[in-house]
């Protein structure tokens, strides 16, 4: 019996899943995802929480491809979510039955985001690093200004935002009693598919070109990589992922408003990919999303009762306490494990691989 996995064919070497254990884990994961609503006995809070994680996960994959693989820093990711969400909201309010059809409206939102991403990516050809981050910051602020502008209140809802009518999937209206469940399965399936797509992009020619650009763009250009094409492609793909996530989020919330997509959300996404692991497309994004989305919830569930027990007045300081803890968490990750949670898990795995016989 061989003492490990040894590949004898080239197809094995380039296959998507290299080890049998990965296939087993994947099967367990899929089983878990399917039965998750049973585990939490259909509690809408926990199902909704899973939907939120799936949505943030999709958007985080997009940013992780742009920043982690292609090395282009973006502080405007929330703006792409806003574009997706507002497209969906506009369609559902104005186009009638087609607009509330998720399968049609989401690709349209993605398409609009692709075009926007193309435009937003253009400055990346001239400016780099911090300067590029600032151009995306301008984009974020500009989108926020446009969607909250009272002059266009009739189209974009101004400060109040827009309501989104109940969606349909393949022509069937989502029944209200199973709403969370339908959203859960739809979003998780989509997130799963997009994650596999992203993972495959990252190991294809495109992904390798992005990595070359990230490491040294001039050297990449010398090697014959078309910077113009691949930088813009990175922005477009990232925008697409964000817009799909934003669109689903708009449907799920039933309402979009400017403050859902402010700069803090963009910063959250950067925090997600840094905490999870920069360039670790699937697992980095997933673990980072998990931390960033669940930590505030955990604080509300655990810290709030303690605060209220001491003095009911203290309950009011919960949001700032959340902010402080969140800030400390990000800082701690940057200082002590700058490669993210994925790297931390790898270290733990390495430690236990030969445990307890280290030598």
């Amino acid at each position, binding site marked *: 019996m061989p003492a490990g996995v040894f590949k004898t064919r080239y197809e094995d070497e380039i296959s998507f899943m290299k080890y049998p254990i990965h296939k087993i884990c994947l099967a367990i994961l899929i089983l878990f995802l399917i039965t998750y609503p049973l585990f939490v006995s259909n509690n809408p809070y926990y199902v909704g929480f899973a939907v939120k994680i799936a949505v943030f996960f999709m958007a985080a994959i997009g940013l992780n491809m742009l*920043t982690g693989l292609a090395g282009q*820093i973006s502080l405007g990711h929330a703006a792409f979510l806003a574009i997706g969400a507002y497209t969906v909201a506009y369609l559902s309010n104005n186009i009638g039955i087609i607009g509330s059809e998720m399968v049609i409206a989401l690709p349209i939102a993605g398409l609009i985001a692709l075009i926007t991403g193309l435009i937003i990516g253009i*400055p990346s050809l*001239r*400016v780099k*690093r*911090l*300067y590029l*981050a*600032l*151009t995306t*910051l*301008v984009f974020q*602020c*500009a989108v926020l*200004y446009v969607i*909250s*502008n*009272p*002059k*266009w209140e009739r189209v974009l809802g101004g400060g109040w935002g827009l309501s989104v009518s109940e969606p349909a999937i393949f022509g069937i209206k989502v029944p209200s009693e199973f709403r969370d469940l339908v959203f859960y399965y739809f979003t998780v399936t989509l997130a799963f598919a997009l994650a596999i797509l992203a993972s495959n992009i990252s190991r294809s020619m495109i992904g390798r070109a992005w990595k070359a650009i990230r490491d*040294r763009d*001039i*050297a990449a250009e*010398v090697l014959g990589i078309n910077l113009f094409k691949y930088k813009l492609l990175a922005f477009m793909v990232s925008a697409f992922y964000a817009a799909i996530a934003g669109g689903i989020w708009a449907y799920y919330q039933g309402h979009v408003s400017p403050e859902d997509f402010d*700069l803090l959300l963009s*910063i959250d996404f*950067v*925090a997600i990919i*840094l905490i999870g692991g*920069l360039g670790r497309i699937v697992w980095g994004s997933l673990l980072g999303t998990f931390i960033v989305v669940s930590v505030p919830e955990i604080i509300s569930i655990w810290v709030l009762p303690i605060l209220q027990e001491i003095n009911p007045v203290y309950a*009011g*300081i919960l*949001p*700032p*306490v*959340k*902010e*402080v803890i*969140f*800030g*400390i968490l*990000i*800082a701690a990750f*940057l*200082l002590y494990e*700058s490669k993210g949670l994925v790297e931390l898990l790898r270290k733990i795995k390495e430690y236990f691989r030969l445990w307890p016989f280290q030598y």
Partner: protein
Amino acid sequence: MSYLYSFLQIIVQGISVGGVYALVALGFVLIYKATKVINFAQGHLLLLGAYLYFFFAVELSLNPLLAIAASSIVAACVGFSIERFLLRKMLGEPLLSVMMLTLALTYIIRGIVQIFWGGQYLALGDKSVFPSGAITIGSVKLGYAYAGGLLTSLAVVGLFTIFFLKTRTGVAMRAVANDQRAAFAVGINVFRIFALSWAISSVVAVLGGVVFANIFGGVNINFESVGIKVFPAVIIGGLDSLPGAVVGGFLLGILESVAKLYLNPILGGNFHEVFPLLVMLAVLLVKPYGLFGTEEIERL
């Protein structure tokens, strides 16, 4: 507002607010020059400074000047600790990580301020440094707070010029900004300079915060927005140029108030908040190193 909104009036008012922006930009550029750190928390240092001033002047009812001194000392300690315990460990890390650390700092500072003082507007009352009222020159009417703020900013800028040109530490700071390795080689304690730049920059932010608090008659959590506004100023002026930061700050103030008066009614909403950013975008695309910045030449 009973001010006569003539064009000149707007310009003068913009210049006075621009003084604060110039101070914040100065602090930003100071840190960037010495340590190459992009400090997204500069606006939050100003926020902290304003609230510290509120704490010492109103809650402890100290004399305003004494309160400024006390809050400057506290802020200097804060700035020093930020450099010593957080950013020094990030030396050599990629830009994104350092950027994110300062963003994490914004969360922490804003959270702490809100825990202690809440998010609502707190009035300074009779504890403002400048008397109420206004001076009138021709058709231009300028509140004492605005005028005093402008004078303060100009005084700080002047002090800085003297500090950098005449004192030993100032020259050492310029040396570090110019070439870290060479500065190290001639025996300058580079780490001391790093810590010092953060401390000085925090004190400058406190002064900006005090001026802001006086202009608005109180402190407010929205002061943090200066942290974003400072970017147009430093980019227009050039990221590593102190005179550029001052010019950029004043330009930003003027741009903002002109946009508020003339462009907001046409385009609607808070266009004055976006307009400087759009100008910054144009500058970035045409002349990425600003008016006075040094151009980076990239080699393979």
